[in-house]
């Protein structure tokens, strides 16, 4: 049971792992942080990226000499628009989100509970002026909500928990979690382990996970 026996995924590799499960034709919103990296990893599949500030068909960052100051994403980064993209206002943009038109939203999180609750906006109960942005709308609106995050906090505490300790973003919405160590589905029975990095045993993973990990019979563990 040595930590050296397995290698946690890097952030780009985590993004690549999520990207593998993104299907052609999906409309996808990517949160700030690791989720943003997914866009570059979908390869030849045509995936339409949505940015809540009014873009569909968001493309990669422009070359430094091609920056268009009017074209930013929700993370305030300069982006491009792919052919067939469109612009719309905030109410229409969140109609897409809240109305269930996005096939997928990938969010970062501080914690996810085994009932699918997510906490990803306020870092503490007494945080006086946290910035929620579109996180709560995205979490309740998309057809699929996936979370990508480190398996543990910097202090070594589990982020997959029985019940969130941080202020909640939404109740029971997360369907899948990608960490640097594993892929876990959130089911009506709780966390179900789908895969781990090579060399990491279920018991080792369970030891650093704050809620039971189930394994289904036909799981690719």
């Amino acid at each position: 049971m040595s930590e050296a026996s397995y290698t946690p995924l890097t952030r780009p590799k985590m993004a690549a792992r999520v990207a593998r499960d993104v299907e052609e034709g999906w409309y996808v919103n990517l949160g700030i942080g690791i989720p943003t990296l997914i866009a570059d990893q979908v390869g030849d599949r045509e995936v339409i990226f949505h940015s809540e500030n009014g873009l569909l068909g968001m493309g990669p960052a422009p070359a430094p000499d091609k920056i268009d100051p009017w074209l930013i994403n929700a993370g305030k980064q300069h982006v491009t628009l792919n052919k067939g993209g469109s612009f719309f206002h905030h109410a229409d943009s969140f109609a897409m989100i809240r109305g269930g038109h996005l096939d997928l939203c990938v969010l970062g999180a501080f914690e996810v509970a085994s009932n699918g609750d997510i906490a990803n906006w306020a870092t503490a109960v007494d945080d006086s002026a946290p910035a929620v942005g579109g996180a709560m709308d995205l979490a309740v609106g998309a057809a699929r909500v996936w979370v990508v995050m480190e398996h543990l906090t910097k202090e070594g505490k589990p982020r997959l928990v029985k019940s969130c300790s941080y202020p909640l973003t939404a109740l029971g919405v997360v369907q899948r979690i990608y960490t640097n160590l594993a892929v876990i589905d959130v089911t009506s029975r709780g966390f179900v382990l789908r895969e781990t990095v090579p060399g990491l045993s279920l018991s080792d993973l369970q030891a650093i996970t704050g809620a039971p990990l189930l394994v289904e019979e036909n799981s690719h563990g």
Partner: protein
Amino acid sequence: MIDKFVRSIAEAIGAVADGATILVGGFGSVGQPNALIEGLIEQGAKNLTVVANNAGTGHTGLAKLMELGRVRRILCSFPRSAGSVVFEELYRAGKIELEIVPQGTLAERLRAAGAGIPAFFTPTAVGTRLAEGKEEREFDGRRYVMETALPGDLALIEAWRADRLGNLTYRESGRNFNPVMAMAGKVAVVQSQHIAEAGEIDPETIITPGIFVDRVVHLPYGDLAA
């Protein structure tokens, strides 16, 4: 590559279950998806609920669908108009249910369905018989009724121009209910007069982004204005 174009009206309509709710774009004869309505007639689903501003005229299109006994219930703002003979006969005979919805409430209920809003309050119809049985509530001393979202299983849309991603523009008063019905339909299918390459429609001018659209059939039955 995403390609929402299909080759036939039948393919556009796809499978429609009996009892489905169908949203039909158009106002008067403008912006009506006539070919798709014909396709729905061909397809055969029955016991339908139809949502449309008007209840059909003459014996074609919506009127034909009704005449064939396929529509159990219709929601519209303006059922009776010149030529709505089929509807009126069925209605008098008790063979079709009618829910009259004020036009603005109809549009807003459709948008609400598309925007994930289950219910909202409106001053429209307060104190009238169209508000009977509806929850009423005061805000700042004014009376409002609660109206609920009106989603559809299938939306039939007529567009002026479409690309393979399902981005749409409309023409003049042909826009009408089409954009909100495209939002409100679980599946939205489009007949488009013209087609464009992806990127050919200025992204600032797309009225219905492709996210709301599932299938498009190109029906160049003529630029009526040309």
